[in-house]
């Protein structure tokens, strides 16, 4: 994993986990990846607001005080989208593993896809390092 490239790695990890879980909460993705909540919300929000819905949201009935929590389920379109997107991210990460380059290749890979939301939609606030970097 190229440590110069945390956001590609984060996006890949989030996409991979969403594909494995299909149904998840934001808190669950945070706990499984160690990625900060804002980044995970950004990922979920991007899937929710895609031109065709990639996620369905279910509001859970709460017994304790606080804001209602949502549980999300990937739609078929969401699965297709994440499979395509992860293939591109994996290719970029592998290239980085091999040549230890900077983020240029990933940005090109994203920009090359007309079906993708603009790269800016993925940009997020400061991210914590993934857990595996700190071990």
């Amino acid at each position, binding site marked *: *994993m190229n440590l110069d490239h945390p956001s590609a790695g984060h996006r*890949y990890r989030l996409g*991979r*986990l969403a*594909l*494995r*879980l*299909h*149904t998840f*909460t934001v*808190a*669950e993705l945070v*706990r*499984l990846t160690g990625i900060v909540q804002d980044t995970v919300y950004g990922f979920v929000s991007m899937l929710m607001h895609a031109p065709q819905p990639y996620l369905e949201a279910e509001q*859970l*009935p*709460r*017994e*304790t005080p*606080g804001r209602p*929590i949502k*549980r999300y389920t990937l739609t078929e379109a969401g*699965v*297709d989208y994440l*499979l*395509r997107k*992860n*293939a591109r991210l*994996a*290719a970029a*990460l*592998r290239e980085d*593993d091999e040549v230890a380059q900077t983020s240029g290749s990933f940005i090109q890979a994203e920009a090359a896809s007309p079906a993708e939301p603009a790269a800016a939609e993925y940009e997020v606030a400061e991210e914590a390092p993934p*857990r*595996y970097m700190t*071990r």
Partner: protein
Amino acid sequence: MSNPPDVSFAPESDLPAIRARLDVLLLIGRAARLYFPGLQDACDANGPPTWDEILHTLAEILFREMTRKNITGIVHAVDVWAEFERSLTVRKLSNSGRLAIHRMGQYVSDHAVLGRAGIGLSILAHANTLATLWLQRHILPHVEYGNLTAAPVVVEYDEAGTQFCAASTPSMWQVRWTLQPFEHSFYGAMILPRVFEHEYLSHLIPLNRHLSKGVREVFLIDTLEHEHRNDAAQNPRGKNADIKLAAWFRVKLEDHFCRNGLTSRAELRDFEDIATLMRRKSEPDFWRMLDNLLTYPNHEWNARRVDEALKLLRYASDEKFDNLAIPWNGFEAVL
């Protein structure tokens, strides 16, 4: 119905204390799995503590007591449970969360009696039988494979957690299941049939003994997960619980093994999503591909060809993937 498969302890692990640890782990794991859907719903709806924090607390107490050698009989499951129920994490739960924990605890106390000593071996045997039945029903009809017989299981204890949590020996048609006092083992105890399904599909059934970790631990596990997801006969609540726990088990296991240098994330990444992608593109071609993989002749060179072909597909564009793999004409055709 044939006789239940043999389950025995490896000679070096056949000690009363290790038998007791197995009983306690698998009894608590079974209780936790039975009432997991209720716990998950309660925690997802009400926020902290999350269900994995609850399971983490339980696993921590259980494995601490194991490694301190305080578990010497099945009845100690009740002590572990009592300490768990007193923990701050459990006390923070909502009412419905506490109800799920209470039900799990009731199950533990009902079964943690001297007359049930040896329950761990029975749970393993049952899981092994379930795994073979499920594979016979869902996977094997699609590939050219004869009757699947349940393999004897040998239980080992690995306190350092440096081995794989299960390993199979095709030449002896045997599964070695390892009790490790680490959190991933607790998740594994909750989804035991899945662990056995993986041992059969990834390690016992393939003719090629040289298949890479990527093929066995990613491609073939993805194959199982996808089939489970599509299994309409399974109760949806139970199915969703198993999918959830299996995903967490996988992540915890990968973390554990990456930390111990037994595999790397890059090595696993080369094989991710291919099974799912292939199956979504063409189910008949996916099954042909799987049949081809499971019956590929046993030679190191062939295993390398499989790796090369799968990596080519992993990094191919959509169009190139279709050109290479649909219709499926074998790994050689991809290369």
